[in-house]
């Protein structure tokens, strides 16, 4: 493929987005805005206990309530056998998925769905749900990862046996998986080290915090086909999961992905889709459920809290020679957390010859954890990047220089196996050195500057598009990737670039699962890369078709026609795409192309952030004074939306660093399930987030695109911890670094 960073007409410009007017006027249709005749409203009843056996459920009084049309509970769902389904970005055991959608036998966390009601409105539904009588036998519970790993911990699943790299333990355990990676010889590595730093870290459970709650509308009444309108990152994934949970053929389900109000990895698993489907079937009416905010916090999404021990050795010249990590991550109620990528990312930024990583996926009485933007990577960066900083301090080396000295480069093998192709970490670190931020001195008491690096794979997976040429030479582009942050435009721009037309000559549309080829989720930083690649391929196909047709028209051989910057050039005639499209429309078949891709590669995104903080020793409050995010985007198709990803990821990371956490009380139930008490950053909490886009072309994309969505959440907690250490000479090893913890830490040091 040709390399990127050429001279482009469309790429690198900043047009408005195609769906912009709808989104600024309130006319865009999100799942909660869908209207259907006779639409009922549903409500999910949730467990008040973190761990309990369900002895019985009596729904009779709820069913008898006026205005109630259907009540369902676990017994209404079919049994789903143990089977692992590939969901594109990650896989899921379908029996666990089914059990998470509606509890059967036991509830495993406070907030676990136990029953649902469909009624004329939300008030009647809530009232009826309060009349459902459930007899619980409350069981002992556990919510801290090391407690959950203990031999005497309350067991969530009697049939779960720890899988050590394929070998199963004989005694049941909450630890689902033990992973192990190594390279080199770790003893040799540490023996060669002049300095060794080992630290333990803890991070709290946090939520993705999308502003739109989960919403699903289902109509399973007339044709036998189940129609679903939902807020999902992947319509095909939602279709597959819904069909499996309901044990019906995939072809019986059509999912329309509505506009989606944020996902960040938390809107891939289904929660409400099968529930609304069964309520619709039972009531004979379409049903909508919009989750309450407390339901979102207590029943969906969080990303793992963790306990980590990281040890790194270096020679006196600053070369990192040995790294050892022991990581235990929350899986929540069911196996299958984010420990895999945690293990793969912990040393991903550095060339360390000898390394060993052990990781544990641990069940406990919390909601089942889900992906959250570079899932599993932010935790390990918080650990690794602080240890690297401490080594630099002990050796008296500049903290940027130690990273430049050890930065991962092309040809380096990660501890989990893969060898990097061309990557851009060195260029990001060089951009730090060149930046105004790094060069400007930071003065004042209680102030400090920190840096940290972060990595995320970025995946390819499957995407399909079709492109049909209108007789005015514009192109309708049909795609299956829900647009969460401007991807209609970043994909359309790539088609426009190939064809030599303008961004707005391409009319992109995101359609339902009946109307486009299979497409994996909007996740893994993959859409602009992979669906963009499909659009590019479709553009090339259109050009081939049109060159062939032009040859007939111009009475020459197709070989004599070349396409230069979208212009068709024959021996004595030439035409632009639009001119030729209009000409060809007069006779012959319509011009339609389709492309489907499955690039089997990572796009390897690196980010480095600089944070300046001021710590108030009286209150422990940390204020971000200045913040710069640097990232290799490969090629920034629409720079504004690349910056937007960098800024948004940085601020999510700032929230993770300084405030966000699930508070579990002594009863193992969450105390802060609202936006008031789960404190995400407001506009007043953060400064402007400066951005520097680095472009080191990705060799696996014709324009050099790399995934950009995920890397920017990785460095912030580490960069801020490093900055706090500079400001106060106290290091913090626990997230969040909230005022009470910082105040306490500073009091203990002084």
């Amino acid at each position: 493929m040709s390399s990127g960073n050429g001279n482009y007409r469309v790429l690198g410009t900043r047009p408005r987005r195609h769906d912009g007017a709808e989104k600024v006027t309130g006319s865009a249709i999100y799942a909660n805005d869908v209207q259907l005749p006779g639409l009922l409203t549903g409500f999910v009843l949730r467990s008040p206990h973190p761990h309990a056996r369900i002895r019985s459920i009596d729904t009779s009084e709820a069913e008898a309530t006026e205005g109630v049309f259907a009540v369902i509970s676990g017994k209404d769902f079919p049994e789903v056998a143990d089977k692992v389904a590939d969901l594109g970005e990650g896989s899921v055991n379908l029996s666990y998925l089914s059990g998470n959608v509606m509890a059967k036998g036991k509830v495993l966390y406070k907030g676990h769905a136990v029953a649902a009601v469909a009624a004329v409105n939300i008030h009647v539904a809530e009232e009826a749900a309060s009349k459902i009588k459930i007899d619980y036998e409350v069981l002992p519970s556990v919510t801290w990862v090391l407690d959950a790993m203990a031999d005497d911990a309350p067991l969530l699943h009697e049939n779960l046996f720890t899988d050590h790299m394929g070998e199963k333990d004989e005694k049941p355990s909450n630890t689902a998986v033990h992973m192990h990676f190594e390279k080199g010889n770790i003893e040799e590595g540490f023996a060669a080290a002049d300095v060794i730093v080992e630290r333990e870290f803890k991070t709290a459970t946090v939520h993705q915090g999308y502003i739109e709650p989960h919403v699903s509308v289902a109509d399973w009444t007339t044709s036998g086909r189940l129609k679903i309108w939902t807020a999902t990152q992947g319509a095909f994934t939602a279709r597959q999961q819904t069909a499996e949970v309901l044990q019906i053929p995939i072809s019986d389900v059509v999912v329309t992905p509505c506009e989606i109000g944020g996902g960040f990895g938390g809107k891939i698993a289904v929660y409400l889709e099968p529930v609304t489907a069964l309520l619709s079937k039972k009531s004979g009416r379409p049903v909508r459920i919009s989750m309450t905010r407390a339901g979102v916090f207590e029943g969906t999404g969080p990303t793992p809290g963790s306990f980590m021990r990281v040890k790194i050795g270096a020679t006196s010249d600053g070369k990192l020679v040995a790294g050892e990590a022991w990581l235990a991550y929350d899986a929540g109620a069911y196996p299958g957390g984010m420990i895999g990528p945690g293990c793969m990312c912990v040393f991903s930024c550095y060339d360390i010859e000898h390394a060993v990583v052990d990781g544990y996926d641990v069940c406990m009485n919390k909601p089942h954890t889900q992906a959250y933007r570079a899932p599993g990577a932010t935790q390990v960066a918080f650990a690794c990047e602080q240890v690297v900083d401490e080594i630099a301090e002990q050796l008296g080396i500049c903290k940027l220089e130690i990273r430049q000295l050890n930065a991962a480069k092309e040809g380096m093998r990660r501890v989990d196996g893969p060898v990097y192709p061309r990557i851009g970490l060195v260029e990001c670190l060089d951009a730090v050195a060149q930046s105004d931020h790094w060069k400007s001195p930071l003065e004042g008491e209680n102030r400090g500057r920190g840096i940290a690096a972060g990595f995320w794979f970025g995946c390819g997976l499957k995407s399909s598009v079709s492109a049909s040429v209108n007789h005015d030479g514009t192109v309708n582009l049909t795609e299956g990737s829900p647009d969460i942050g401007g991807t209609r435009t970043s994909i359309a721009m790539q088609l426009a670039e190939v064809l030599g037309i303008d961004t707005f000559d391409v009319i992109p549309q995101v359609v339902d699962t009946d109307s486009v080829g299979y497409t994996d989720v909007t996740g893994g930083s993959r859409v602009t890369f992979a669906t963009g690649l499909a659009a590019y391929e479709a553009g090339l196909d259109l050009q081939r078709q049109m060159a062939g047709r032009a040859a007939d028209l111009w009475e020459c051989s197709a070989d004599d026609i070349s396409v230069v910057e979208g212009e068709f050039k024959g021996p004595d005639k030439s035409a632009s795409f639009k001119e030729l499209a209009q000409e060809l429309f007069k006779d012959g078949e319509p011009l339609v192309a389709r492309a489907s891709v499955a690039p089997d590669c990572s796009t390897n995104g690196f980010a480095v952030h600089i944070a300046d903080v001021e710590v108030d020793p009286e209150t422990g409050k940390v204020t971000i004074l200045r913040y710069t995010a640097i990232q290799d985007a490969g090629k920034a198709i629409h720079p504004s939306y690349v910056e937007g990803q960098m800024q948004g990821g940085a601020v999510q990371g700032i929230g993770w660093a300084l405030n966000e956490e699930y508070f579990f009380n002594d009863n193992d139930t969450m105390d802060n399930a609202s936006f008031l008490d789960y404190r995400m950053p407001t506009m007043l909490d953060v400064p402007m987030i400066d951005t520097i886009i680095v472009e080191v072309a990705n060799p696996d994309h014709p324009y050099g695109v790399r995934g950009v969505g995920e890397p920017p959440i990785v460095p912030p907690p580490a960069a801020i911890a490093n900055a706090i250490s500079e400001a106060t000479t106290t290091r913090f090893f626990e997230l969040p670094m909230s005022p009470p913890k910082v105040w306490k830490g500073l009091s203990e040091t002084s």
Partner: protein
Amino acid sequence: MAKTVLVTTTINGESTEFLCKPRESLLEILRDTLGMTGSKEGCNNGNCGACTVLIDGLPVDSCLVLGVEVEGVEITTIEGIADVGQLDPVQDCFLDGAALQCGICTPGFIVTARALLDKKPDADEQTIRFDLSGNLCRCTGYDKIVRAIQAVQESN
């Protein structure tokens, strides 16, 4: 069942009547009774600002106002910010400045920003951040939203 009440109010300049139960919020009335779904529900307890409307020019979370309370007031919703065929400068600047990603918080931000600019056209960055701190956005990190509002100020 509680008594249904007839409420007469003005929404986006049009006199509007609706029937409502005392427990129904203004957000429910707008979305479910009147079909005006531009105001979004993010939390339903006044913490996220996605449902912000103006009541007599003041931004309020419509999920915290009861339908029966709006008798005789003037309400502006996101649907009333643009003129027919002509976006408001705040909307234009949000689009040009890429100040939205998923868009679910955007109606609330635009309504709040409009009220801010009407009242304090020269608001500095700190004032903008203070006045919009009741609106949560999880996608943008706020940078481009602040800059879009500043761009409206510069274009005046």
